[in-house]
């Protein structure tokens, strides 16, 4: 099967208000295969969010090419953001329904199915202001899956959530990805989150972000919280951490 999305030597630079050229992403090449979850780990401000916007087609690359698989009709993304970004004027049900409205899908059966899957039955008519932070994240995840996207893009989906809630949400997200056979690209600075959720991890350097290492995660696809204490989990996490530390040291050296 062809890759869902292929990036070849993709670069992106911006011109700041003062007229300076800033390079956000440099020569990134990667591909995501159908059904796999790929994580990109890197320090804050390394251009990870930019990369997601390029793949979503919200922004165009300055150089290189992005190929999107459109065999099964349209290439369409699901999007999960750092801070839920729900529409506060819409109920849980209507927030999840939004992508179906925009792509003009009549069948709303998926909305109820996802509300069920994220365990939010009985909260359909609640507004975001009435929900806990964890519940808001669940709704934003359901919104990203409801229209059966070609790929789900997740931009640090659990930033600012307390540790225990975060682990529970990561477990639920992993189950959801498997149940719905979703292809996903996760961007995060949380090493454990990347290892727990993905099949492959790309390590990104500080700005301008470039991919410097690929780390495979040798864990079974069905994962429960107990894998966090397995040797394979530890091995993958250590490898990513070592690479990030090396990059950090290089940056400190360059600065001094």
């Amino acid at each position: 099967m062809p890759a869902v999305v292929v990036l070849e030597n993709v670069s992106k630079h911006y011109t700041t208000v003062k007229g300076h050229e800033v390079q956000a992403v440099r020569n990134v090449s990667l591909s995501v295969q159908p059904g796999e979850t790929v994580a990109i780990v890197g320090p804050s401000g390394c251009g990870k969010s930019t990369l997601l916007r390029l793949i979503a087609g919200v922004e165009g690359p300055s150089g290189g090419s992005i190929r999107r698989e459109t065999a099964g009709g349209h290439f369409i993304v699901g999007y999960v953001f750092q801070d839920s970004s729900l529409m506060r004027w819409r109920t849980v049900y209507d927030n999840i329904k939004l992508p179906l409205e925009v792509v003009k899908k009549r069948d709303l059966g998926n909305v109820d199915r996802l509300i069920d899957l994220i365990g939010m039955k009985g909260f359909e008519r609640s507004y975001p202001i009435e929900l806990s932070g964890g519940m808001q994240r669940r709704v934003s995840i359901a919104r990203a899956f409801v229209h059966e996207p070609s790929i789900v893009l997740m931009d640090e989906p659990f930033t600012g959530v307390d540790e225990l809630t975060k682990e529970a949400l990561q477990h639920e997200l992993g189950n959801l990805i498997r149940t719905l056979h979703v292809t996903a690209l996760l961007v995060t600075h949380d090493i454990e989150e990347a290892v727990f959720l993905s099949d492959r991890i790309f390590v990104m350097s500080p700005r301008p972000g470039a991919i410097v290492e690929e780390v495979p995660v040798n864990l079974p696809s069905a994962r429960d919280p107990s894998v966090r204490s397995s040797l394979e989990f530890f091995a993958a996490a250590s490898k990513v951490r070592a690479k990030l530390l090396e990059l950090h040291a290089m940056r400190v050296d360059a600065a001094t």
Partner: protein
Amino acid sequence: MGGIGRTTRLSLPGLAAYGLPLVSFVVGVVLWQLLVALFRIPAYLFPSPSAIIQGFFAGRIDWVQQTSITLNEAVTGALIGIVVGFAIAVVITLSATLRQILMPYIVALQVLPKVAIAPIIYILLGFSNTSRVLLIVILTFFPIVINVSTGLTDVDRNLIYLLQSLRASRATIFFKVRLPNSLPYFFDGLKIAVSGALVGAIVAEFVSSNSGLGFLILNSQYTFNTVAAFGAFAILTVLGLLLYAAVIVLARQLMPWYRSG
């Protein structure tokens, strides 16, 4: 979660929050009455609360008619101002060019104390109801323009990205994101606009009118009928409160998802 909020509101500290202002008001009115009596201040200088109430029911002034004239002007002007303000906000949000063209006029009009132009409006449009309403429109449309255009622009970037990634048109983004996002801003503007509408109605009647509460106050000055003027103040205070409360009730009805503060 709402239950906890509601019970605490009815508890002792909640009652104190409403009780103390009420006590303060009653004590103030009583003191006013006593001081006027103690220093034998004549009613034409500074009437006592009881004199105001007596004057109010003396039947020399048709309060209902005078109030309805002023209220009618204020509401008509405010409604036009709101519609015009909303339309201008939408236009300057959608078109950067039109924003740049209109902005100097909008800013100039805002910086100018608008009641200053009242006498000149009458030169342009004559001593008519139209002139009075126009002054109110000018006073009310500006807070709507500023608040609504902020609400249409000050949108969660991620929501725009989300809709763009789904290939939504600009119109879809406008109706699904920008417009609902502007509602709380609109109601904040509306609170300013309704008090502006009363100011406009009174100033317009000061400048030219032979009826309404503003005319009544001005006429009271000529005839030393201070009691009548204070009656008008009382009505204006109540009107202002009612209009403000109406905005808050409407906002709660239309935005059950919104809690300010």
